[in-house]
């Protein structure tokens, strides 16, 4: 028996929701970053799965989108991490609920 597309999509949906969980319920800025990364990775898994099971696997569009998406995720992680460090320098905290001042 080979796994069907449905199974891949379920796993990917699970990963996405775990990422959502981390981004929504944790209050540490780095956990939010982890959640966002996980959601992006889940989306990539979907692209690859649809490419593999799709009607035209000769045309690797899904693979290309996944490659670009990984590059963008890396850029996003770099900027996100830089933001966390900058915020930490300023407020001496990484708890996002404490960052409630508009005045620097």
């Amino acid at each position: 028996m080979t796994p069907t597309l449905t199974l891949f999509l379920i796993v990917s949906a699970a990963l996405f929701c775990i990422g959502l969980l981390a981004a929504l319920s944790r209050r540490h800025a780095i956990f939010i970053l982890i959640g966002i990364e996980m959601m992006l990775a889940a989306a990539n898994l979907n692209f690859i799965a649809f490419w593999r099971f799709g009607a035209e696997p000769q045309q690797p569009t899904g693979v290309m989108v996944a490659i670009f998406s990984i590059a963008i995720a890396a850029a996003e992680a770099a900027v996100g991490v830089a933001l966390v460090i900058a915020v930490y320098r300023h407020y001496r905290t990484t708890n996002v609920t404490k960052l409630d001042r508009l005045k620097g």
Partner: protein
Amino acid sequence: MSASAFVVIAIVTVAGALAAACLRKLIHAALCLVVAFLGIAAFYFLLGAEFVGLVQVFVYVGAVAVLIVFTILLTRREDEDDVGFNWGGVIVALAVFGVLSWAILKTTSLSIAPPAIEALTVKRIGQILMTDYIWPLQCVGVLLTAALIGALVLVMEEKR
């Protein structure tokens, strides 16, 4: 594509992801995130996209995870490992998962077996990247440069 490999990888990936989202200690969460990323890379191998799998390991494990652990080091404070949990997020996440899986399971056209394909070589990916996708590639290059400069500007020492 074997079912047993799928089951093993799926369990490892989802367990790693759950641990990354829920563990109390930040550093353990970051290391579990690496496990989840490796699992996703294994999925790519299973799906026949070796190149993307290798890039995934290279970028996520080699760069993103290292960035995250380095940030944890630079912003470490003993008392801040456990800073509370918002239970509203759990409800939202569960609801989203319910809706998504309901939609996926309801769609009968998705339960198909993979068609047989010839292996996707690195050479072919390179050729397509340099012909059809040359403009996106350039844009990603500009984006990465911008992100690099932006990150540097953000973490630069503030003049006091």
